[in-house]
């Protein structure tokens, strides 16, 4: 595990190579600032496009928050599993795919697989999962570990950049140890 300061975050993301899976463990107090910074560098500076899976903030709040932080969302497609805007069925809109619950991991896995299969220029695409700690609130560790293993394998096979975000202290040591094996880098931002 690598511990870096907020200043080093820009350098780390700028040097992020395709086919890398990175878990960022962020201090809860700095979450909003750092989360926006990660996205800004990926989208504005590295010109990446990709899929953003949110289980933390509903799509509407997330968009508002990203716009406030002047982050261009034109190149991000959102998968929202927290809004509960749909009863028990997935629903695709112009900007977002809604999944009924963060516990519907099978549906989430199929969604990602389908999306990744049709992605072009995969070396310039990312998948962000925000956040692992929230996924662990809705599912047990074993299920989340299996899901993450599945997703990470897919990202590796297709050569995409995977950014996993988790809030410090909300993710226990057992989960971190499992993720150390799966991810290429675990970066704790202090």
């Amino acid at each position: 595990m690598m511990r870096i300061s907020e200043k080093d975050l820009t350098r780390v993301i700028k040097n992020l190579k395709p086919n890398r899976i990175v878990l960022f463990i962020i201090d809860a107090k700095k979450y909003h600032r750092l989360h926006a910074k990660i996205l800004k560098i990926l989208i504005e500076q590295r010109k990446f496009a990709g899929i953003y899976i949110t289980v933390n903030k509903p799509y509407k709040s997330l968009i508002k928050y990203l716009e406030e932080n002047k982050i261009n969302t034109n190149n991000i497609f959102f998968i929202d599993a927290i809004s509960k805007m749909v009863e028990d069925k997935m629903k695709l809109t112009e900007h977002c795919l809604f999944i009924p619950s963060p516990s519907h991991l099978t549906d989430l896995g199929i969604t990602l697989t389908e999306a990744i299969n049709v992605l072009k220029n995969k070396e310039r695409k990312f998948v962000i999962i925000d956040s692992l700690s929230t996924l662990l609130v809705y599912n047990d560790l074993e299920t989340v570990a299996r899901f993450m293993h599945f997703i990470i394998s897919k990202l590796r096979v297709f050569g995409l950049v995977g950014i996993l975000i988790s809030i410090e202290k909300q993710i226990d040591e057992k989960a971190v140890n499992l993720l150390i094996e799966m991810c290429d880098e675990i970066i704790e931002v202090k």
Partner: protein
Amino acid sequence: MQLEYFTLALGGMIIAFASTYFLATSNTNFTKGQLKKITSYFIYGALLFYAMMTTQFIIEIFNLYGTFFEILKFIFLYFALIFFLLASYEIWEISKALGFASKHAPKKLKKILES
């Protein structure tokens, strides 16, 4: 001739049972969601199909042609088809949400996927 029907009914029972077994095992592995729902419909359909083949098997053994058992067989078949229809409808619903390769996929999504 009767032996052939008997064998076909037995074969159908075995296939329907195997199908139910695989579906039920898969269903326990899935988390809650639309796919689980589809698998459940298929399980009910396969179970009813199994019941139908069992009824046919009984008809063959005891020569119950023209009795209530024949109607029962069609009732099972009818309900099995209803569950297969429900499963098909759910798959159609999923294809609307996950049809990323579809011509009708949102423009923004297409742009991101293909850029």
